[in-house]
């Protein structure tokens, strides 16, 4: 297992402010945010609809990427889950992946020193 991991969070745009605040309070230093289009297993079907969409309908979402020490992943995923959770369809998904190398260009620092 590598020393650093990346957490990608895809969620509704309205939840971004709360998520940013939670991550800041948890001393996460740095994030990358993208506005994306996508859908989950419901194929973009609104939660109040009766029938599921036949074709995937892409909905606007926010994707937040943070790189953290692997030892903090469990704690942070728990925090993020609690922050995003409402029980509604569309609360979001969290992806965690190992990173083989991180380099800070300005100093040449690597891995945990670079984040």
């Amino acid at each position, binding site marked *: 297992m590598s020393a650093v991991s990346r957490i990608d969070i895809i969620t509704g745009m309205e939840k971004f402010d709360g998520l940013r605040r939670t991550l800041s309070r948890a001393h996460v230093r740095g994030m990358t945010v993208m506005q994306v289009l996508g859908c989950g297993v419901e194929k973009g079907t609104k*939660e*109040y609809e009766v029938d599921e969409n036949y074709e995937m309908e892409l909905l606007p979402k926010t994707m937040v990427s943070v790189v953290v020490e692997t030892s903090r992943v469990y704690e942070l995923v728990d925090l993020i889950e609690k922050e995003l959770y*409402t*029980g509604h369809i569309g609360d979001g998904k969290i992806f965690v992946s190992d990173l083989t190398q991180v380099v800070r260009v300005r100093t040449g620092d690597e891995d945990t020193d670079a984040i």
Partner: protein
Amino acid sequence: MARDEDKPLGLRNVVSVSMGLIVSMSCLVSLGQGAGEAGTMFIPAMAIALVLNLCSAACMAELNSLMPNATGGLVQYTLAGLGPLPTLVAMVGGYLVCNILCGGVEAAIFGTVMTQTLHLPIPAAVWPTLVSIVIAVCALLGVDAFAKLQDFVSYLLLFSMIAIGLIGALRLGTGEVVRQQTAVATDPASVVAAVGTASWLFVGAEYCIPISKDVRNAKRNIPLGMIISLVLIFVMDSIVVLGFGNYVPWADLSSSATPHLLYGERLLGGFGKVWMCVVSALAFTGSQNSTVNGLSQITDGMTKVNMMPHVFARKNRHGAPAVAILFVTISICVIAFLSGGTSDSISFMILVVTVLWLVSYILADLDVLVLRRRFPKAPRAFKVPGGPVVPIVGIVGTVFMIANISSDPAEARLVWLVSLVTLAVLGVLSLFWIRRKMHMAPLKPVPIPQVLAMENDLYYTIRHRRGIWR
């Protein structure tokens, strides 16, 4: 959905709403009569009752953290945990009917107290009607106006009770100090028996849950608010019990129909009686305000899941469920008018519907256990510690309260029988409604995402138009 920082209510409001429903006029009577029967040993009985009610409040808070944006609270929790039939029976019997009846009788007693104290040539029914109109107007102006009224009433009541309790406890009153044994009941069995009476002093903290979607940082403030309100009430009631002991003989307290007024009179003469009359008015206003707002929100929540006629979902321009507010207010006034000064038969009915209310508490504890089993990994911002211990203690404690519903065994048996019959009748009617209107399996739990999707008005509209829901 509103951003968290834009929500109008905070922890202070959660505490005042919780306290508002709990500290009603009948609670003031129960406090005096309980103290009269057990003396200062009523305080340990209250402590046991506090622990039991903290268990129930904690379970409600965990359910709230699992479905934080649900309008009706227990409606949605039970629908997801146990299915439509237990939900409909518990909510109609345990909340709507129970609290409308209780509110009506409170209103009637309030009218009688005001007439007896102020001796003005005004019919008794005018007082509760006036207060009910003010409360309805505030509720119709939206959650902000409701919360402001509740804050004012609850905190004034809290400080008044603590002040009048301290005056008695420190023997600073103008009346004659009574020399008597501090404890009437000293054996453990008597203390445990007093827990039944003490329990009523803490029932209703969950009424803050329907406002949770308007509360900032609800994940923290709802459980914390319920706990703070219950502890504050315990402290306040304990001080008042100590005051009782210094100025009123225990026997006089237990035999009085209005022991709080008796205490005020013995403590500070006529001024004290008027003070306690004002306290009664605050208690009535607070409990009615919480009842009207809480029940209208619960009714709105039931409408969303098609358990009530859709007319109750109509909102005014302030976003308040106007039809539900008027329905609850008018129902309470009608019950108050019908019960008048003779509330014996209605008091028996209150015991019956209180059993139904407690049954809904048991269902809430069961919801916690069932939903933990079905969704063990769902992120709960608040989870009751100790595994299944607290919900099980809550269930056992509630069964104990039902078993001690009345000190008269014959009356208790009759209450249980009528409650069972009421549950059976409600069950048959609910079954009919679920089959005819909802087209759902009566005992099949509804998935949480589906329950929460029902919050959206389009859920009903689409199904109604397609003939799936009637």
